[in-house]
């Protein structure tokens, strides 16, 4: 597996000149120019640019993030188009991730976009991961999700964990040693999970993608309250939503060693429950 990388570089020092573009969000209470400049200095790695990840990446670009790292292997296929809104119908058969990067770059030329045509296991992904301020997990299988989770815990990088199935989805925010990690939540995952076998209402993927982008913006700017140690679920079929606390697993192979001895559960401030 060889990763291809394309770099869509933003014009140097363009950012302060375009603050005006963001005047509507700078005006949001508690956000301000400081948060906007922080976003402009930040790097987000979006693993997977399907309906969920593509939407998240697009909104991070719109919000004025400084640099996006996108990774996703393979070429676009016809059934992708119900949700992969960065792609156009004439791009079937072309590498998804480069076209997705191009689409973001066209809209927001001030964002530096790096596109990696490979999955999470690619050496290029871990190289960029250590230079990221937040990672968004938008892959479609447990093996890659757990690998990304492990690397984020090791490198101390916050992870926005978002997933969907049919019309239902979830979002939570993971910080190693503080919140439960993905492995605490799902264990080894579902070995029988078919990455291409689950149905998708495109709008559900997009909705969860927007929620993931919102969490990433909050993680980066410290504005608002994130979903750390909290699982938020939403079913678009009946608009039922839930929020519940998550607990750390005292024997988690990925993060239990980061836990003070004898303590199992933590609240979102990292205090034992």
């Amino acid at each position, binding site marked *: *597996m*060889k*990763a*291809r*990388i394309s770099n869509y570089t933003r014009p140097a020092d363009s950012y302060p000149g375009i603050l005006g573009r963001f005047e509507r969000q700078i005006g949001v209470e508690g956000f301000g120019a400081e948060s906007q400049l922080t976003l402009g200095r930040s790097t987000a790695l979006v693993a997977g640019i399907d309906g969920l990840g593509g939407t998240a990446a697009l909104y991070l670009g719109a919000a004025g993030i400084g640099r996006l790292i996108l990774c996703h292997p393979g070429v676009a296929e016809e059934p992708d188009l119900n949700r992969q809104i960065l792609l156009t119908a004439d791009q079937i058969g072309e590498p998804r991730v480069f076209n997705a990067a191009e689409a973001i770059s066209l809209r927001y030329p001030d964002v530096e976009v790096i596109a*990696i045509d*490979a999955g999470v*296991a*690619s*050496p*290029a992904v*871990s*190289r960029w*991961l*250590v230079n990221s301020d937040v990672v968004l997990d938008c892959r479609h299988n447990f093996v890659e999700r757990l*690998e990304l989770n*492990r*690397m984020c815990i*090791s*490198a*101390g990088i916050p992870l926005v964990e978002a997933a969907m199935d049919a019309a239902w989805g979830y979002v939570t925010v993971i910080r190693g040693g503080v919140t439960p990690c993905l492995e605490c939540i799902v264990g080894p995952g579902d070995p029988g999970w078919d990455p291409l076998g689950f149905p998708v209402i495109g709008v559900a993927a997009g909705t969860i993608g927007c929620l993931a982008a919102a969490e990433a913006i909050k993680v980066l700017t410290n504005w608002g309250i994130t979903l750390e140690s909290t699982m938020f679920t939403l079913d678009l079929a009946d608009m039922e939503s839930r929020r519940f606390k998550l607990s750390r697993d005292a*024997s988690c*192979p990925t993060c*239990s*060693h980061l836990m003070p*001895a004898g303590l199992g559960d933590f609240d979102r401030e990292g205090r034992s429950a």
Partner: protein
Amino acid sequence: MSSSGINVAQEVELGIPSRKAGGGCGVNTNVGCGSKVMPLDPSVREKVANHPCYSQEAHQYYARMHVAVAPGCNIQCNFCNRKFDCSNESRPGVTSRLLSPEEAANKVRYVANRVPQLSVVGIAGPGDPLANSDRTFRTLGLIAEQTPDLRLCLSTNGLALPDHIDRIVDSGVDHVTVTINMVDPEVGERIYPWVYFEGKRRSGKEAAQILSERQLEGLASLVSKGILCKVNSVMIPGVNDEHLVEVSRVVRSMGVFLHNVMPLVSSPEHGTYFGLNGYRGPSPQELAILQDRCSSGDGQMKVMRHCRQCRADAVGMLGEDRSEEFSGDEALLAPEAYDADERRALHQEIERGREELRAQRESLRIDLGTGYRPNSTVLVAVATKGSGLVNQHFGQAREFWIYEAGERWARFIQTRSVDRYCFGPETCNDDSSPLDRSISLLRDCAAVICSKIGEEPRRALALAGIEAIEAYDLIEKTVAEVGEAIASTNGDRAAV
């Protein structure tokens, strides 16, 4: 392998050097000084004679293979990230696919029929063989039954070792490698986030303490059963580099045959804890200094210097990775008959050649690092495909063998790979050319000896102060001659 008829024997492989500071040797230069080569026990000699990992000389003639049947691991190491389905990384823990014991035995037979140099089959992961003991011992049983002339090897972290001594002995394994990176839990807790022992995940000093106790207990049992033991240690600068001299001393006192100090392979690309957190591997020079310290002074250990840190599914000679060539389904399924005759004939030919060369080398009286070191030595690099000869073009060399050279002196120091820290095109299409990389790799060498070199690289090397020398001859003979010539010139210069 018609060229196998020529080689210089390496006596250092044949005995445990007993070293004392000799006359005329400074504290820092006592490697190889005043030492005697004690004759090896004939049974040990027989065991290492054709094992590429236990003998630097043997690794020029014989091949090994690893079968990746052990996916799970009972400890986590901060330098390890097990990866499956990966063809462009070559380091421990990486494999293209996982094999069942039956597939593994089929693959061994398939490879054995096509690689007559094969002498050893090992199980080294991608996890810990003894954390997958049923799969491991079933595999060993099948291989012993179907390809009985191959040696069996095992590499383990040692946590489960004391529970499996009898099965290891019964399965016919005659070499075991235990990876020991510390004997002090204070050091260990920085290397191991957890161990899984007696149904519980343990972390911190407790984890390192348990691991260390189990490793040493297991080693002692193996040695008492007459199994030849090697200890692998990963040199992690700033974590255990100083401490490994103590590790070497401890394992030597327990009767371990060989200590393999390997460099940490670490960059973010590997996705390991150390890699993601900016821990660096040692330079080749730092590694060689530590290996010298382990093999001299208090440590006095026999040290392996030719390790290439191979994959969990490696096939071929050390330093050549043919794992991809044998990764297809046909290697796993073909229930073909086993033919040991070609290998037996080749091995006999190899041994005849080695014997001839042993005699030839003795007549040349070149010291391979066991006697008194001459006053003046330099480092030289050799381009070789093995078989004891300088026989490779400079531009084709993917690695160089580094020797300490002087009058009648050729001490093997290490191998250096041009590609070692480059994994796949996305990480290595930076601006440095292969020639630039080779030159920076050899910048501490006075000369590079190869069978042929072009004018451009010759000039570039000369600019870096490295002399290019063409030869097609015995490695040690050429090394000693070049070393003597350069060292004497240096001496003249010093006199002026």
